[in-house]
């Protein structure tokens, strides 16, 4: 066939016949690969640790240990999708924890007031950095590197180099509390289990409805077998994890906060105007601007949002340790950024999913947890985590190059 005859036919993904389940799976390897990798790694550690990984108490710990990373990863995903980076989140996290400690422990201010002030402070910090990045076009790497140093220093100054604690009980419950049980069954938290099961059903139901809507326009791409397989995995995983957690102390409060945020941010990124525009800004800022998108304001907002989430993470972390230390938040930014990139976001911006970032966060968390149980030294742990990050991104780039 000559080239000329081929012009107006789409070049890639043009096969009119529907791909088989395997073909489709291959084409979307990145999306499913993530989930698959998480399942495989969990299975690996489950076997290696002799079943400790999925013990209810350890699973609860896993959630508590990773919640603040995942919460920040939600904001970081938006920042990275918009084509930027935020290196200051770890320091902001520590700073806000210190701020909360000073206000609650030293000044004795009531918890709810302090929480609101801290979240506002986080948003303000993010906004201040976003201001220079968005409106003065100072590279985000530099602005947030400066922020990282500034807030690390301010944390030390606030705490005067000492640890401040303990926090009031109400505040501790943010991290160490569990949702109340209305049934009062011995040894099994039925409310938690039902909540997990209902959530799973709702997710599957939403997926089925979305697929039906697609079908109306003849847009169904995913073969039925893959669709049901994927949803079956989700359903089983939720019910199983719900059952495990229920047989310990139920769902942690932090998990509820995190789940609500995941739902919210998934909604924002996939269903709202502002989410769509953030992707457009990251994908092609100039084109977005010429389409009437206020690109500067969006970038500004993503940083303000990131600051607020970093503050929330800082509160959760402080509540978990029950003390604010000058070292809190140290290096968190690296785990957060790694989670987002392992989750398939692109350094160039415009690409990335909330679900990917969450899975990436858990993947890192499971590895941390599993390797610790196995007694692997912190030295090797760092090496392995670094290599996993590199491998995930190489896999990404390789896939993309093959596609084009």
């Amino acid at each position, binding site marked *: 066939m000559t*080239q*000329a005859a*081929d*012009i*107006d*036919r*789409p*070049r*890639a*993904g*043009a*096969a*009119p016949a529907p791909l088989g389940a395997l073909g489709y799976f291959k084409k979307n390897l990145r999306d499913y690969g993530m989930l698959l990798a998480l399942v495989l790694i969990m299975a690996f550690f489950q076997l290696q640790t002799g079943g400790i990984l999925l013990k209810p108490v350890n699973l609860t710990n896993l959630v508590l240990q990773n919640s603040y990373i995942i919460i920040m990863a939600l904001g970081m995903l938006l920042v990275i999708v918009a084509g930027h980076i935020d290196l200051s989140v770890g320091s902001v996290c520590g700073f806000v924890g210190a701020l909360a400690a000073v206000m609650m422990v030293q000044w004795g201010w009531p918890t709810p007031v302090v929480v609101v002030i801290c979240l506002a402070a986080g948003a303000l910090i993010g906004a201040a950095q976003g201001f220079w990045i968005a409106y003065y076009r100072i590279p985000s790497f530099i602005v947030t590197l400066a922020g990282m140093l500034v807030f690390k220093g301010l944390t030390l100054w606030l705490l005067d180099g000492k640890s401040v604690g303990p926090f009031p009980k109400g505040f501790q419950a943010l991290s160490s509390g569990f949702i109340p049980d209305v049934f009062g069954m011995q040894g099994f938290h039925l409310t938690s289990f039902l909540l997990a099961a209902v959530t799973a059903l709702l997710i599957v139901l939403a997926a089925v409805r979305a697929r039906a*809507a697609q079908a*109306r*326009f003849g*847009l169904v*791409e995913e073969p039925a077998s893959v669709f049901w397989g994927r949803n079956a995995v989700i359903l089983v995983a939720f019910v199983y994890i719900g059952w495990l957690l229920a047989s310990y102390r139920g769902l942690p409060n932090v998990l509820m906060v995190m789940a609500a945020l995941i739902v919210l941010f998934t909604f924002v990124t996939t*269903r*709202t*105007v*502002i989410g*769509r*525009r953030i*992707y*457009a800004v990251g*994908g*092609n800022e*100039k*084109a*977005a*601007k*010429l*389409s*009437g*998108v*206020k690109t500067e304001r969006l970038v500004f907002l993503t940083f303000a949002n990131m600051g607020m989430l970093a503050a929330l993470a800082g509160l959760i972390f402080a509540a978990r340790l029950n003390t604010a230390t000058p070292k809190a938040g140290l290096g968190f930014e690296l785990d957060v950024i790694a989670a987002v990139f392992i989750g398939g976001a692109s350094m160039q911006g*415009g*690409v990335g999913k909330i679900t990917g970032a969450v899975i990436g966060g858990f993947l890192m968390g499971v590895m941390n947890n599993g390797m610790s149980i196995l007694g692997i030294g912190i030295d090797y742990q760092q090496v392995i985590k670094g290599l996993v990050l590199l491998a995930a991104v190489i896999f990404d780039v390789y896939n993309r190059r093959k596609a*084009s």
Partner: protein
Amino acid sequence: MPNLLEMRGITKTFPGVKALSDVSLTVRSGEIHALVGENGAGKSTLMKVLSGVYPHGSYQGEIWFKGAERRFRGISDSEELGLIIIHQELALAPLLSIAENIFLGNEVARGGVIDWAETFSRTGALLKKVGLNEHPGTPVEKLGVGKQQLVEIAKALSKKVELLILDEPTSSLNENDSAALLDLLLAFKAQGIASILISHKLNEVSRVADRITVLRDGAVVSTLDCGAEKISEGRIIRDMVGRPLDDRYPPRAPNIGDVLFEVRDWNVHHPDHADVVQIKGAAFTVRKGEIVGIAGLMGAGRTELAMSIFGRSHGQKITGTATMRGKPIDVSTVGRAMKAGLAYVTEDRKTLGLVLDDPIKHNISLASLETISTGGVLDDARETRIAHDYRARVAIRCSGILQEVVNLSGGNQQKVVLAKWLNTSPEILILDEPTRGIDVGAKYEIYAIINGLAEAGKGVVMISSEMPELLGMCDRIYVMNEGRIVGELPGARDAQDGATQEKIMRMIIQTKENAHDAGR
């Protein structure tokens, strides 16, 4: 005189476009050979084939240089043989010194350690050769464009040069610098260095060229020998544009109403250099149902004019008034310009028009997300329906509306951009090079869409470097040159007074010469 270079039967196709077909070009030893043609005639493509930017194997045909067939795999291969190309956009590192730039990639060094004394003394000698009186340590950014051009040539001379190719070397130079550059070419000729000169400025071409090859639509129209006869500019222009208008344009019965959109006394300064005026006192009107063309050469300021009107997307210190149906409108941001009823389809769809990695659906809705959402939440079903409608209406050939636009052909990408703007329901559409890089079949479809817009009572402004396209489509044509609107012609439909390619070309060239006369 023996032939230094022979290009035989060069054919180069891009996906969708035949850029060169069976082009043959010979350059004799020590001659200045001019290559002229309209924008898009294939001059730059031919030079890229010659210099190895498009490596052997990506084109058909043979290149013979210094008596042997050459198969360049890259620029370094051709440079090694003394074939040096100087591009229109200068490729200098602005913060490095003249000497560093001249020997960049070719450093005078022993074991990786640069010999600065030798570098500077050699640079001094080269600068003397090109008549540039500057210290070799001066950073290139401190020099004007004309002097930077000379640095490029000095860089070429630092290598062993046998054939110098200059792509529009004088397009950004003033009269004196241009004259000096041409004198330099004549001096090189005396030393036996041959040159290929690509230029739009026919007065310069006739001054220095020994022979002139005219390209049109990727083929050689004629090779004129200036030694044998006196070649008039009219003759060259005729060869450049002499192409019959056939039925490449869909028919349309214009139904033109009142003045819809008007721009008056529009002035724009360069975005980086506040003292450089890019658009001077431009004024034009667009009527309801009218297709208005803006003709001009590259760099005439057409895109700058359009983008400065569309939400001040280009330039600074913009002054002037824009009115819609006689009432002043606010076009100070893209959002406001859109609200006022404007739409601008960029000339550069890949970098300015599309989010390439996003699906068709998202690209179509990007400029009108408000209309498909309530309270900031997108109505997916409505978005899908709109995408489907446009897919059918402008005939986007794709596997589905979820296909990423990066995988579409140029014509279909352009249709996606058009759909995006049609969906904002504008009153005035400014189309900047709407058919650039698109094959003939898809062009026809795009023309039909444009005609449909005019028939629906919209006003269309069409910027194009392809004159036949403007003549075939427009009811009225403005001619721009050097930031000014220098003339206005009725459409080609008016057989007596209507625009022709010769008239447009003459308007451009006359104003160029007038400007130069005035500058003298």
